[in-house]
């Protein structure tokens, strides 16, 4: 009997845990080396669903996603054109769409930022999280279409569909980043931007180091409690490999102060950002380790006022789908004047005018 025919009748939770190899897949650009599964997608999905079920708690920890989404919107508006159809890849609770309905921080009188955006397609694999804010008033101010993805690594869209692809704080859970970026490139229209932001580099290094030291002293070894993250240096290569042109990568640090390390861990859990690394230790973290980590965190990184800082390093990336009409960088050595002279002249002029 064909397995595919039964699949639709299996309850969703069970269906998620069945291997996907038996289903048909879209042909995507092969990324080269076989992918290693680092993160458990099923576990991540379950964490997000569970976190979003507690609506109050889930909304309470939107501070990070809202801030990052707002900064991402600013980057989108820096591009001086109208975007009729935008894809929000890994939308979480549609934080991006919500931020778009607010006016820009720099020009509060210019009206909502969504003036420049037509339709938004918000895609995420976690249904509960995606529809969490579906009945809030901001949904009426913007044309938003929520779509639940079967997995967060496959984009079921036709080539050349979107005028921009955005992705805010979800790509750090993707196993096969080259393939997802290549798919994003594929669904973009020529000469359209991909603008993404992901957690990276030294994010949460305070928590990471405290847990490592605590485990080393208590148990004599180290287990994985925080994800491996992409580094700034890797992003350029990743985007280039996915076929993007005119790359821009920049880094932004957000430091949040927490009363204690448990508050940080509780917030991460409520965001659905708990550990989902395949090689993680199953079961809860030992109390002894938590107790030790709190003491070390406070001593090693604590602020003077008794709070504990947690650093989130955000990597913003912009890449353009190639098109023959696109502006190309000039050839080396064709510059007519030195940028150094130009900038110094500007500085001197400023000094004189004051």
């Amino acid at each position, binding site marked *: 009997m064909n397995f595919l025919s039964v699949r639709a009748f299996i309850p969703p939770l069970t269906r998620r845990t069945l291997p996907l190899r038996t289903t048909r897949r879209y042909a995507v650009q092969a990324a080269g080396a076989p992918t290693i599964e680092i993160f458990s997608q099923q576990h991540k999905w379950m964490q997000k669903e569970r976190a979003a079920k507690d609506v109050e708690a889930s909304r309470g920890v939107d501070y990070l996603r809202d801030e990052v989404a707002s900064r991402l919107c600013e980057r989108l508006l820096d591009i001086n054109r109208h975007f009729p159809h935008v894809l929000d890849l890994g939308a979480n609770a549609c934080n991006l769409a919500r931020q778009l309905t607010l006016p820009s921080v720099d020009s509060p009188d210019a009206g909502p930022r969504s003036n420049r955006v037509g339709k938004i397609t918000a895609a995420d694999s976690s249904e509960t999280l995606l529809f969490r804010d579906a009945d809030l008033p901001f949904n009426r101010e913007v044309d938003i279409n929520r779509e639940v993805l079967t997995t967060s690594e496959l984009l079921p869209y036709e080539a050349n569909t979107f005028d921009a692809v955005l992705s805010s704080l979800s790509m750090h859970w993707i196993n096969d980043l080259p393939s997802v970026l290549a798919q994003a490139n594929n669904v973009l229209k020529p000469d359209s931007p991909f603008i993404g932001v992901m957690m990276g580099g030294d994010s949460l290094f305070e928590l990471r180091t405290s847990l490592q030291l605590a485990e080393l*002293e208590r148990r004599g070894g180290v287990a994985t409690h925080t994800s491996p993250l992409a580094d700034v240096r890797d992003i350029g290569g990743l985007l280039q490999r996915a076929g993007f042109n005119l790359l821009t990568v920049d880094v932004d640090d957000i430091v949040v102060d927490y009363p204690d390390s448990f508050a940080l861990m509780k917030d991460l859990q409520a965001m659905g950002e708990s550990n989902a690394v395949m090689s993680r230790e199953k079961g809860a973290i030992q109390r002894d380790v938590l107790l030790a980590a709190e003491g*070390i965190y*406070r001593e*090693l990184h604590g602020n003077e006022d008794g709070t504990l800082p947690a650093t989130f390093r955000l990597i913003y990336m912009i890449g353009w789908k190639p098109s023959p009409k696109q502006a190309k960088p000039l050839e080396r050595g064709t510059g007519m004047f030195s940028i150094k002279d130009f900038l110094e002249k500007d500085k001197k002029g400023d000094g004189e005018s004051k």
Partner: protein
Amino acid sequence: MPGRTRPIDKFATAVGRCSKEGSSYGKCIMADYNNVTKDKCITEFLKLKDCYLVRLTIITSPSQKKN
């Protein structure tokens, strides 16, 4: 159950009341954090744990016992 305190909250409150022991444990690790071995700071840790266990019993015991 409405108003139920999560175990992690009780844990956090109890640990929060042992800041002195926590800080002396942290200092012990900090003294040479490039060379941490198992049970390097066992004395400090046991003090911290004793303090935490005492605080936890105070928090979890019924209110009449506390008074």
